[in-house]
C-alpha cells in the first residue's frame, strides 16, 4: 500500500481492529488509514464486514481490540457525537432520510452540533448551489422525493456537518443506472471541494474508477489492498463477486 506521503498524519485510522458480535468474530485485524483529501473505497460482497467497519469508524460499534484514531487522537472510547463534531460524517446506506421531516429540516439536522448561524446559512446556500433540484423542494417531506433527490439530500445533510472525511455506505444501492452515474459525479465534486471520502461499495468498477485507493474485504479480513487502477485489473476482484 502506498500512502500519499509518509509524513502526513492520517485523518482517520483503524489500527488492529477486531470486532465481535457476541462471540462471533466479525472484523479481523483491520488496518486502514484515510488521509486528508483522499478518495478511497472499501469493496466487498455480502456480509463481508463492510458495514461493521463503518460503524466502528463512527463509534456505533465498539471494537474488542484495536484503536480508532481521528486526526492523531485516540477516539476509540468517544461517542458518535464527539466524532461527528470532529469532522467525521456518514451518508448511510439507502440514504435513510428523516422521511416525515421536510427537506430543509433534514439539512438543518445535519448541522445539529453547530452553533454558527452564519456558517450554517452559508453552507445551506452552498448546498442549494450544488443541488439546485433540492433547493426547489425545501418544504417538501423528504419521503416524497425520488431516489436520486433523496441521495442528494442525504449528501447535503452530511455536508452540513462540515465534515473533513465523509463516509459513504453503498451510495449506488437502489438507484437507477442513470442516477448512479450522476451520483458518482457528485461524489467526485464533493471530493474536489477538499473533503476526504471513504466509500463502501459493491459496485466495484464504478467505485474504483473514481477512487485513489481501495481495499477488498472478504469475511472480515482485508484480502486486497492496492491502488484503484491495480485493483481494477486484478482478476481476483471479479472472482470475489461472481465466483471463481
Amino acid at each position, binding site marked *: 500500500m502506498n500512502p500519499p506521503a509518509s509524513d502526513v498524519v492520517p485523518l482517520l485510522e483503524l489500527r488492529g481492529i477486531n470486532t465481535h458480535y457476541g462471540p462471533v468474530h466479525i472484523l479481523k485485524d483491520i488496518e486502514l488509514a484515510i488521509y486528508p483529501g483522499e478518495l478511497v473505497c472499501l469493496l466487498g460482497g455480502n456480509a463481508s464486514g463492510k458495514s461493521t467497519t463503518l460503524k466502528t469508524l*463512527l463509534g*456505533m460499534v465498539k471494537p474488542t481490540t484495536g484503536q480508532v484514531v481521528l486526526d492523531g487522537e485516540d477516539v476509540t472510547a468517544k461517542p*458518535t*457525537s464527539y466524532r*461527528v*463534531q470532529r469532522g467525521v*460524517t*456518514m451518508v*448511510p446506506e439507502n440514504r*435513510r432520510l*428523516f*422521511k*416525515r*421531516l421536510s427537506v430543509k*429540516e433534514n439539512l*438543518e*439536522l*445535519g448541522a*445539529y*452540533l453547530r452553533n454558527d448561524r452564519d456558517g450554517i446559512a452559508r453552507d445551506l446556500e452552498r448546498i442549494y448551489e450544488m443541488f439546485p433540484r433540492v433547493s426547489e423542494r425545501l418544504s417538501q417531506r423528504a419521503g416524497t422525493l425520488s431516489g436520486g433527490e433523496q441521495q442528494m439530500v442525504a449528501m447535503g*445533510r452530511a455536508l452540513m*456537518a462540515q465534515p473533513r472525511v465523509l463516509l459513504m455506505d453503498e451510495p449506488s444501492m437502489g438507484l437507477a443506472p442513470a442516477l448512479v452515474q450522476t451520483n458518482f459525479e457528485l461524489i467526485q465534486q464533493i471530493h474536489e471541494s477538499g473533503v476526504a471520502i471513504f466509500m463502501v461499495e459493491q459496485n466495484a468498477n464504478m467505485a474504483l474508477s473514481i477512487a485513489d485507493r481501495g481495499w477488498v474485504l472478504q469475511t472480515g479480513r482485508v484480502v486486497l489492498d492496492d491502488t484503484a487502477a491495480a485493483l481494477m485489473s486484478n482478476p481476483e476482484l471479479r472472482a470475489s463477486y461472481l465466483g471463481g
Partner: protein
Amino acid sequence: MLVIGLLAFVAQQINPTNPFASWVNPDANRLTGPALRDLIISGLNLGVMYGLIALGYSMVYGVLGFINFAHGEVFMVAVMSSWITSEKLFEAGLWEDFFIPSLLLTVMIAIVVSTTTAVVMERIAYRPLRGSPRLIPLITSIGVSFFLQNVAIGLFGPGAKRYPQLPEWLTARRTLLWIPGVEVEGTKILVLVVAGVSMAMLWYYVERTKTGKAMRAVAEDKEIAALMGIDVDKTIVRTFAIGGAMAGVAGILWGLLFRSVVATTGFLPGIKAFTAAVVGGVGNLGGSMAGGVSLGTAESLGPLLLLEPMGVKGPTQLKDAVAFVLLIAVLLFKPSGLFGERLSAEDRT
C-alpha cells in the same frame, strides 16, 4: 360527532326545538339551543384536557413505540400536587388575597412535579427496557400506573379532596368572544384559552426549534439521529418531560374546572386520553388534540343527540360507551386513526 353537533347547533339557531330529537323516540326531550351550546362548550373543555393528556401518550408513542399506560397517573399527580399547593396557600391566606401569583405558583409546582414524575418513570421503568418487545414496556406501564395510583391512596388517603374556592371574577359567566348571547363560565373560557396556548407552544417547540427537530428525528430513526450528533437518551427524557408538562397543564385546568381530586382521578381521563390519541392517530400531535376534542364532544353530545332519540333510557349513563364506540368506529374505517400516518417501517417489525 363534532360535525353532527355543529349541524345541530346551526339547526338550533333556526328552529329552537331540536330537529334531531324525535327520531325513533317521540317522547325524547327536545334540547334547546342554550342546552346544546352548553353541551358543546363542556365537551370542548373536556376534549381539550383529554387532548393535552393525549399529547403525552402520543409523543412517547412516537419516540419509543409503546403506549405509556401510566401517563394518566402523571396527570393525577399534577392534579394532586396543585391541590396540595393551593390548599396550603389557602390556609396561609394567600390564595384569596394574591390569587394570580398563587395560581402561577400552583401551576409551576404542578408542572414541575408532573414533569419530574414522568422523567423518573422513564429512568426507572422504561429505559432498561429499550429494545425489548413492545408488549413488555406496555405491561410495565400498567404496573407503574397501579403503583402510582395506590401510592397516592397510601399517602393522601382515598377520599375526595376539595380545591379552595376560586374568585368570582374568574368563575362568572362571560360572553364568549363576541358572539352575543353566548355566555360561558370564565373558568371554561380559561381552559380553552390555556389549552390553545399550550398546544401552540408545543407546536412551536416541536416544529420550529432545534430540539423539537431533534425529537422528531429521534422518533423516526434513532440510529441516524445519533449520527447527526443528537443525544438520543436525552431527547427521549425530554419527550417524557414535555408529555409530563402537558399532563401538568391539563391537571391544573382539571383542578380549576372541577375543583376536586381523588387518587383515581387519573384513571378514566387517562384511558379516555389514550383513546383520544388512538382516534386522532397515535404519534400525531395535532391528531391527538383533534382526537381529544372529538372524544370530548362525542361524550357530551352523543347520549342526548343520538341515544335518547333512539329510545335509550338514561342515555348519559352510556356516555363512556359512546366514546368507545366512536373509537371502534374510527378504527374500523381508518385503521391508523383520523390523522394517523402510514405506518413507518419500524412500526411493523
